[in-house]
């Protein structure tokens, strides 16, 4: 219960941050990606603000023995740079560039009732389930767990 409440507040802060940063506006996102055209640097400041904060704060948080309302830290264990990582990132990048939505802003846009986000979201969930079905089949036949990728 405490864990769910903490997660609720963190999710709320994340959503407020995305909206204030205007990362929820696909035109701002596409403007940032349009480096050979009408480049809009806004998103660079969002990414700098976010990663500088985590780079400093994560260092202190991970020195604790355990989190406040959970038994242990669950950090991604895999460090492998493999084909699924690069291929998955590439496929994600193409989708991101086409619509200007990545998962977080699409969720927030759907919360605001933006039609394009409401249409994008079910397609995104279908895409992730499709990958899982393909991965399950692949691993069943070839016993290749790395194609499954890790969830971070």
């Amino acid at each position: 219960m405490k864990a769910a409440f903490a997660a609720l507040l963190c999710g709320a802060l994340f959503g407020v941050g995305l909206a204030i940063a205007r990362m929820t506006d696909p035109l701002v996102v596409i403007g940032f990606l349009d480096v050979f055209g009408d480049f809009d640097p806004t998103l660079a400041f969002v990414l700098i603000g976010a990663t500088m904060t985590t780079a400093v704060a994560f260092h202190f948080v991970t020195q604790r023995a355990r989190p406040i309302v959970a038994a242990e830290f669950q950090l991604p264990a895999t460090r492998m740079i493999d084909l699924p990582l690069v291929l998955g990132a590439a496929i994600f990048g193409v989708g991101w560039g086409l619509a200007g939505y990545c998962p977080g802003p699409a969720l927030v846009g759907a919360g605001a009732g933006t039609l394009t986000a409401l249409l994008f979201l079910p397609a995104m969930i279908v895409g992730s389930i499709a990958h899982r079905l393909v991965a399950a089949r692949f691993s069943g036949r070839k016993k290749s767990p790395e194609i499954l990728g890790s969830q971070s």
Partner: protein
Amino acid sequence: MSSWFVALFGGVLIGLSATGLLLFNGRIAGISGIVNGLTRRSSGAEWAWRAAFITGLVGAGGLTMHLLHQATASPARLPVLLLAGALVGFGTSLGGGCTSGHGVCGLGRFSLRSLVAVLTFMACAIVTVLLTHHVFGGAA
């Protein structure tokens, strides 16, 4: 306030949220991973924190968009929008993260794996915008 300062401030809030989730719940704030966890079988507590995070994100984020009078839609036409959604879902599941998991959290952990992912999806997104907006003309 200038727009870059507002963007920086928004970014810091996102970073603080990711810090909070790690500090309290011991988890990485990767939106694609959190959503993916909701569509698979898991224990009640595991499902609950994920659902709570997404509820806060959608509710407070959507409300903030309204308060700031943001109602900007994606310029992509319907078939492109659906294709983009499917690619984002498939790609983030295969690559194990998106802008938040590999970007905000992975870079903050100085993960080389995440840096490779971020550089790859940035490059592919930039090339996609170049192709759809300049080479083949008109918005996708």
